[in-house]
């Protein structure tokens, strides 16, 4: 393996809700430019981990360093500004907008237009609008959504909605993309398309943190895996190592390993 720098370093992260320890001292490091999957049974703390990373929860203890910068205590919009984007397990599309507008909201951080300039529609605003539209168009194209740009986001079939979320997150040009169960609810064809899309995103230089239950997808697309169970790290390693790990097999994978192989 080549020496790649660490993009995200999580150290001894703890998150408790009342008496329940959702994350009990989780540590891992995500190198840059690869797909890093996080798997584990329901309730293992995967989505909680994402929500802590995004500043939605304030962790009880531990550190989160993104490219050396501490994320703990930052509000979500500041974390996003550092170059982290995400999709959501339960869709959080803006249903009151078109697909293109949704993705243009993703470009928010790349724009500068102030309220006053927008209200007066100064020439530079028109200029920026054109650029945002172009950037959004590029993200739509990467996700093969160009033909749906003008449709209302709420009128799309489920599989497309999930892809719009990815396009919207990509439009921010993030360095780290968090995907929360992107394959949930997709059929086989859509899942295959998703796998290709993930590879394309990685090729574009975006590091992906992937929470997913679909084992064939996870095993075929990820470079490294982290296995969580009851809020703790059970194992960490390359897909082949994880599939051979007896603790993982005992605790979680079971038949899924055979399926994946």
């Amino acid at each position: 393996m080549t020496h790649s720098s660490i993009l995200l370093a999580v150290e001894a992260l703890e998150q408790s809700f009342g008496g329940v320890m959702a994350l009990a001292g989780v540590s891992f490091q995500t190198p840059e430019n690869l797909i890093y999957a996080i798997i584990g049974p329901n309730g293992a703390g995967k989505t909680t981990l994402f929500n802590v990373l995004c500043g939605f929860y304030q962790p009880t203890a531990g550190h989160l360093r993104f490219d050396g910068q501490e994320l703990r205590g930052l509000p979500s919009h500041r974390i996003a500004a550092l170059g982290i984007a995400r999709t959501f397990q339960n869709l959080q599309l803006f249903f009151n907008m078109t697909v293109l507008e949704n993705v243009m909201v993703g470009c928010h951080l790349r724009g500068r237009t102030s309220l006053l300039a927008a209200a007066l529609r100064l020439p530079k605003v028109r200029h920026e609008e054109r650029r945002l539209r172009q950037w959004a168009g590029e993200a739509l194209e990467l996700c093969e959504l160009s033909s749906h740009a003008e449709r209302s986001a709420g009128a799309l079939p489920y599989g497309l909605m999930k892809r719009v979320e990815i396009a919207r997150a990509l439009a921010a040009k993030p360095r780290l993309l968090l995907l929360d169960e992107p394959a949930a609810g997709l059929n086989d064809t859509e899942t295959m398309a998703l796998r290709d899309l993930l590879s394309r995103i990685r090729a574009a230089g975006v590091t992906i943190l992937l929470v997913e239950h679909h084992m064939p997808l996870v095993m075929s697309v990820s470079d490294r895996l982290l296995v969580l169970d009851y809020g703790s790290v059970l194992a960490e390693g390359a897909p082949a190592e994880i599939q051979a790990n007896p603790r993982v097999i005992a605790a979680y994978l079971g038949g899924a390993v055979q399926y994946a192989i």
Partner: protein
Amino acid sequence: MRLTGFFIFAASVALLPVLFPDNYFVTVVGIAAGLHVILAVGLNLLIGYAGQISLGHAAFFGMGAYASAILTTRFDWPGLLAMLVGLLVTGTIAWLLAQPILRLRGHYLAMATLGFGVIVHVILVQATHWTGGPDGLGEIPALSLLGWIVDDDQRWYGVIAAAMLLSIWLSLNLVDSRIGRALRAVRGSEFAAEMMGIDATRAKTQIFVVSALFAAFAGSLFAHQQAFISPDSFSLMISVELVTMVVLGGIASTFGAACGAIALTLLHESLVVFEDYELLIHGALLMAVMIFLPQGLFVGLTQGVRRRWISRIASRQDMKGERNSTVQQ
């Protein structure tokens, strides 16, 4: 084109007094409707686009009006300067108020703004030394725009129509911009919006202030145009009426808000003939609109027309298609 609707509307506003010269309905009712449009369009930015409710918007309307009235009558300030200071003061108060208030959501926000509206109304009634109390403030001088005195209904119609078109134009620009999309995103999902790098609290605070500024602008014009103001014009009922205009016309549409404002103004004027039954008919009509056009007058009607149009085109194409297929057979 983006502004097609705007130009059509502007042209009809300009044509009305030409087609109906010296018409009471056009000038006097037009002036009232124009002011209402400014208020509703501003409030719609907050309610329709940011998804925040304000039940105290008459307070900002009143602040603009009283700032102009007090500064011009007691201190002999020129009207435009007084208007500017009124906007500045109202904007600052709105900004300060937004700090604690916009942390609240839904019903709590409604309650807080309602409370604010009541407090301002009480101050207008009680601070008799400054506001003249319940008797109001009179002898507000006519507005002078660089030497051009606005002193008759025709001129007022022109000024208020221009002000109204300006506010519609600003609103249309805002909505269709990075700022407007951010607002709609906050309304759609605050969490997701934050993850796009949008500072939701800042976005809501900004639009609350803008919305208050629209109201203060209308208030200032209102004071000069009426030459006399009293707290009655800025009561809780007015706040509720403003929300009704936004909802009646169709939420989250600039022309919807404008349409609601005009419709409600016309309704008041035309129902006067029914005297005691006015409120009753008024209420019944509002209920009917909400039942049959729940998206509001403007949005509901335009969508209906569009749908019928599309289905007619589609059926025509179907017929063509059938003819072609029979030919092929």
